[in-house]
């Protein structure tokens, strides 16, 4: 274990702590921009998939299938090299924001679609019969009911999005993982493998663990509530049969 107990190596990491903080802030910046883009795309394409219009449904299906069935690294490289070789390069981090945003937008779209489709059709019809506009119907009737179904998987996607910023490495990114790697292999800084990897892993863990824990607790409590309502309903049915 190269240097896990060596005070020297830990000291080196401490001296170069700026590298890790820079990486963390780059990762956070990429993740936040990508998250906003993916939420935007997810809501647009999720609504398109549930609009009931064949053309819109088709477009959103194509987007989701193409993006979900190819690796993020491939999409990122495609975007980066296509821009680079056509002399339109926009920089590594902006390219990463766009590619990761588009990739997770497809997952967000599926989450939004599933959430909206879980609402019984009667709710849409009732809203329409009350004279609600499409926006009003979505905002006042459908969204408040579907948000609790949408949020847990959405938080899980956020965790995946944060982890996926690491793929910036392949195009020479400046995110946390890339900077950690160049730190441990650098000529003047190299060698402190164990402490550097522990620090960078810990930084990811500190951000991701609370999010994924909240998501799974949330999901479980929803499931339990579902079971409870179902058993109550079943009990009600039985009572009716007995009567």
């Amino acid at each position: 274990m190269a240097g896990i107990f060596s005070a020297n190596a830990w000291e080196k990491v401490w001296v170069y702590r700026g590298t890790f903080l820079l990486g963390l802030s780059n990762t956070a910046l990429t993740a936040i921009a990508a998250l906003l883009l993916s939420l935007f795309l997810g809501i647009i394409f999720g609504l398109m998939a549930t609009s009931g219009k064949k053309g819109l449904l088709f477009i959103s299906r194509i987007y989701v299938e193409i993006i979900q069935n190819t690796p993020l690294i491939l999409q990122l490289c495609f975007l980066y090299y296509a821009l680079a070789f056509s002399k339109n390069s926009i920089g590594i981090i902006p390219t990463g924001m766009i590619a990761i945003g588009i990739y997770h937008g497809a997952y967000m779209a599926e989450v939004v679609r599933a959430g909206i489709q879980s609402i019984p059709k009667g709710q849409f019809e009732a809203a329409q019969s009350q004279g609600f506009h499409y926006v009003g119907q979505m905002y006042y009737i459908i969204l408040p009911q579907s948000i609790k179904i949408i949020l847990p998987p959405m938080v899980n996607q956020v965790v995946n999005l944060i982890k996926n910023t690491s793929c910036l490495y392949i195009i020479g990114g400046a995110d946390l993982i890339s900077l950690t790697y160049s730190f441990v292999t650098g000529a003047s800084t190299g060698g402190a493998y164990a402490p550097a990897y522990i620090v960078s892993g810990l930084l990811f863990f500190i951000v991701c663990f609370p999010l994924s824990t909240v998501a799974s607790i949330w999901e479980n409590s929803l499931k339990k509530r579902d079971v409870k309502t179902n058993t109550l309903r079943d009990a009600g049915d039985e009572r009716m049969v007995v009567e």
Partner: protein
Amino acid sequence: MNTLEGSLSILKNPAILLYILKGVGFTLVISVIAVGIGILSGSVLALVRNYCNSGKSRIFKWMAVAYIEIFRNTPLLLWIFICLVFCPSPEFFTHKMLGLSSVEIKILFKAAVALILFTSSVIAEIVRGGLNSVAHGQFEAGHSQGFHIVQVMIYIVLPQAYRNIVPTLLSQVITTIKDSSYLANVATIELMARTKQLLSSAYNYNGLGTVNVSDVFVLFGFAALIYFIINFFLSSLVRYFQKQAA
């Protein structure tokens, strides 16, 4: 137009097609092995996390929890880097084989270990979901028939749990095929890495002496098509199984 023809001529070269095809083979084999071993170790982790609740065995439960949560909340690439440095490679994997050099084989082994470790933690949570979906009465029924806890697991609970998670496991295969592209960061073995490698030497093959935008579109488009065909087939299977279950 001229450059596009040059780029397309890359794909007409049989040696290059074979090179790409081998990459596809590696991608598939690595993913299947990772998921296969992941199912075994993930099942063990899930069983330990779910049922080691009493007395001293609780320490194993916390170890399983720690393993799953640590791997779930850190990126795969970090584990690939860690395994490259710290994972010992057995004698068997230090030789030339499968058309790869001995250095590449070593990296392949270490990176595959990272992928397996990572996939195990994801599959553990999937299996746990399956275990939790088995009704509690099944355990009691098993016990009342005089079954030992191990027998209850093997004959009653696990078969039902696995049947419930077939679609989720299949979509994990898709995720693992996509995750295997992270190996492109460290070695030129699987499809993604080989595509990137071809792009950087495209000027040798397109007859123009330079790398053009059309090369990017043709090479990455071709790789994307291969990934898409494999994964779309699998995701159609997932949908079929989900319909069957519903």
